[in-house]
C-alpha cells in the first residue's frame, strides 16, 4: 500500500506539466464554455483536431486519454443511441425494420437462457453473445415471413443524428480535457490552483483557504487511512471474517466489521490532528503566508490568450453564422 497514487497524476515533463495550475483551470473553464457554445460541425471538428494535435505536443499518449474515457463509455453510447432513437426533428434520413415472430423470439429467448448458463463455465462475453444473437435474428427474419409477432421500425432523422454527434463530441472533448488536466497536475497543485482561482468568492463569504485546507488534509490522509483499512481487513480476517467470498447478506456484515473500526479510528485521528494543528498555532480563517508559491510564466499568458480567443471566436461563430 506504499506509494499509492491519488488522482490520475502521471509524472512527466512537457509544457502542459509546466503550466501554472491556475491557468490550467481557467483555460479548462474557457474551453468548456466554448465547447457548449459551438453549434457548427466544422468548428467542433476543428476543436477535436486541436486536441489531437495537443496530445502529442504535451507528450500524452492516446492510451492514457482512453483510460480516462473508459468509465464513461456506457454513458457515451447511451446518450448517442438515445438521441438517435427519440429525436424526431428535421428530415427523415432512413428507417430500420425489426420483425419479431414466435420462432425467432423463442430462439432468442432460448439463447439468452443458454448464455446465462454458459457464462458460468466459459469466457463467453456478453458482446459476443449479442453478435451471435443478432446474426441468428437476421437469418431468421429472412426465412420466416409469415405469422408476424410484431414489427418495429426505427426512424433516423437528420436533426437527431446531428444532435447525437454533437453530444458525443462534446462529452469526448470535455472528458479528454479534464483527463489532460488531472494527468499533468499534482493533486496538491490542483488544490492550490483551485484555492487561488476561487479567491474572488471571498466576496460572498466563501472561505476558499479553509476549503483548500480540508481538501489538502483529505489528500494527505487517504494513504494513511487506506493503510489502516488494510490492517483492519487483516485483523478481521485473522478473526474469521472472509472478505472475498460470501452472499450479499454476508458482505454487508463484513463491510460493517470494516466500517465501524474505520469510523472510530478516523474520529480519534482527526481529534489528535486538530490538537496538533492548534498546538502549531493554526487558527482557522487567520491570514497565513504560503510555502507553495505559484509563478506566472510567459507561457501561461500565451495559453490563456489562445484559449480566451478560441472562446470568443466560438461565441462569435454562434452569433454571426
Amino acid at each position, binding site marked *: 500500500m506504499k506509494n499509492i497514487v491519488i488522482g490520475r497524476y502521471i509524472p512527466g515533463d512537457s509544457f502542459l506539466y509546466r503550466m501554472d495550475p491556475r491557468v490550467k483551470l481557467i483555460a479548462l473553464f474557457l474551453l468548456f464554455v466554448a465547447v457548449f457554445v459551438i453549434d457548427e460541425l466544422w468548428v467542433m471538428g476543428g476543436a477535436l483536431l486541436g486536441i489531437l494535435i495537443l496530445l502529442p505536443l504535451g507528450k500524452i499518449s492516446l492510451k492514457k486519454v482512453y483510460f480516462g474515457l473508459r468509465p464513461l463509455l456506457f454513458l457515451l453510447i447511451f446518450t448517442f443511441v438515445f438521441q438517435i432513437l427519440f429525436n424526431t426533428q428535421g428530415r427523415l434520413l432512413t428507417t430500420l425494420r425489426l420483425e419479431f415472430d414466435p420462432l425467432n423470439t423463442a430462439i432468442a429467448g432460448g439463447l439468452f437462457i443458454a448464455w446465462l448458463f454458459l457464462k458460468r463455465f466459459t469466457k463467453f462475453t456478453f458482446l459476443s453473445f449479442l453478435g451471435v444473437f443478432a446474426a441468428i435474428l437476421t437469418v431468421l427474419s429472412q426465412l420466416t415471413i409469415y405469422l408476424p409477432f410484431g414489427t418495429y421500425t426505427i426512424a433516423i432523422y437528420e436533426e437527431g443524428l446531428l444532435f447525437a454527434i454533437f453530444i458525443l463530441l462534446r462529452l469526448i472533448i470535455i472528458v479528454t480535457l479534464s483527463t489532460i488536466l488531472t494527468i499533468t497536475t499534482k493533486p*496538491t497543485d490542483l488544490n492550490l490552483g483551485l484555492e487561488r482561482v476561487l479567491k474572488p468568492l471571498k466576496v460572498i463569504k466563501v472561505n476558499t483557504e479553509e476549503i483548500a485546507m480540508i481538501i489538502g488534509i483529505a489528500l494527505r490522509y487517504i*494513504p494513511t487511512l487506506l493503510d489502516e483499512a488494510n490492517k483492519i481487513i487483516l485483523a478481521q480476517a485473522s478473526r474469521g471474517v472472509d472478505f472475498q467470498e460470501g452472499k450479499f447478506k454476508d458482505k454487508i456484515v463484513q463491510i460493517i466489521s470494516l466500517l465501524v473500526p474505520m469510523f472510530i479510528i478516523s474520529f480519534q485521528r482527526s481529534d489528535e490532528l486538530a*490538537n496538533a*494543528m492548534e498546538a502549531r*498555532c*493554526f487558527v482557522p480563517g487567520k491570514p497565513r503566508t504560503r510555502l507553495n508559491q505559484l509563478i506566472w510564466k510567459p507561457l501561461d499568458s500565451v495559453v490563456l490568450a489562445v484559449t480566451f480567443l478560441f472562446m470568443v471566436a466560438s461565441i462569435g461563430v454562434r452569433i454571426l453564422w
Partner: protein
Amino acid sequence: MSILTLKDVFFSYGKTPAIQNLSLAVEAGEWVTIVGPNGSGKSTLTKLIIGLLAAKSGEIRVNDLTLSESTVQKIREKIGIIFQNPDNQFVGVTVKDDIAFGLENLSVPYPEMIERIDTYAKAVGMDEYLEKEPSQLSGGQKQRVAIAGTLAMHPDIIIFDEATSMLDPEGRHAMMAIMEDLKRQGKTILSITHDLREALRCDRVVVMHEGTILKSGEPSVILRDEALLKQARLTLLEPFKYMNELSSQKRLTDQWEAILWESALTL
C-alpha cells in the same frame, strides 16, 4: 523567574479529577521529565499548558503571560509540542510542507520560511527527505520532522508528549540524541513519558500519580527510589535494582555506581 509556572492547577473530566492541585515551576534551560503510569494525568497536563483544555481552577504562566482566552495564541507561539502518534501530527503532504505548516500559521515571510526549513531539516537530519511523503518515512523519521516543524517556530519551551512511545529502539535513541542536543543549545525541555529510560539524562524527574506530584528530584535519586516508583506503578530499571542491592549489602563502590549508571544509559 521560572519560564513555566503551574500553581494549584485543578482539572477534571466530568466528576473524576485528572489533575489535582498541581504546582510546578520549570526554569529556563532546564530539562524536566514528568514520569507516571497511564492515566496519571500526564497528557492532560500538556493540553492544559497550551490551552487545548481549560483548567477548572489554578493558574498557568508562561514567562510573564498568564494563560487565558486572550493570551492562548501568544502562549502557543512560545510552546512547541511533539505528540505521541507520528502520523496524526503530520499535516503537510511532504516533509517540506509539514515543516512549513507552523511557519505559514505564524505568517513568516517566504524567503525566511525557506531558510528555516533548510536549517531545521538539517538539524534533525532530514534534509535529504524534504520532498518525501509521510507514507515513505518511518515512524522515527516522521517524529524528527515533527521536531523540525516545532523548532522552526522558535519556541521557548519544547514539550515531548510520549513522543517516543510509538517508535522502535533506533528511533527512540535518535530522539533522545536530539533532546540532548537541544539541552546543550540551552532550550527548555519538558518531556512527558511512562518510560523511565527517558528520564536518565534530564535535570529533574517529576513523578506523577493520580493527578498529583508525588515527588521531584534529580534522576540519580528518584530513579533509585523503589518505594516511590512502586507507589506510582512504575518499575525500577534493572541497573538501579543492582545498585540498590549492592547498596543494601554495603558493597556499592563509586566504580560500581558509575558502571551501572553507564549501563542504564545504553538501555
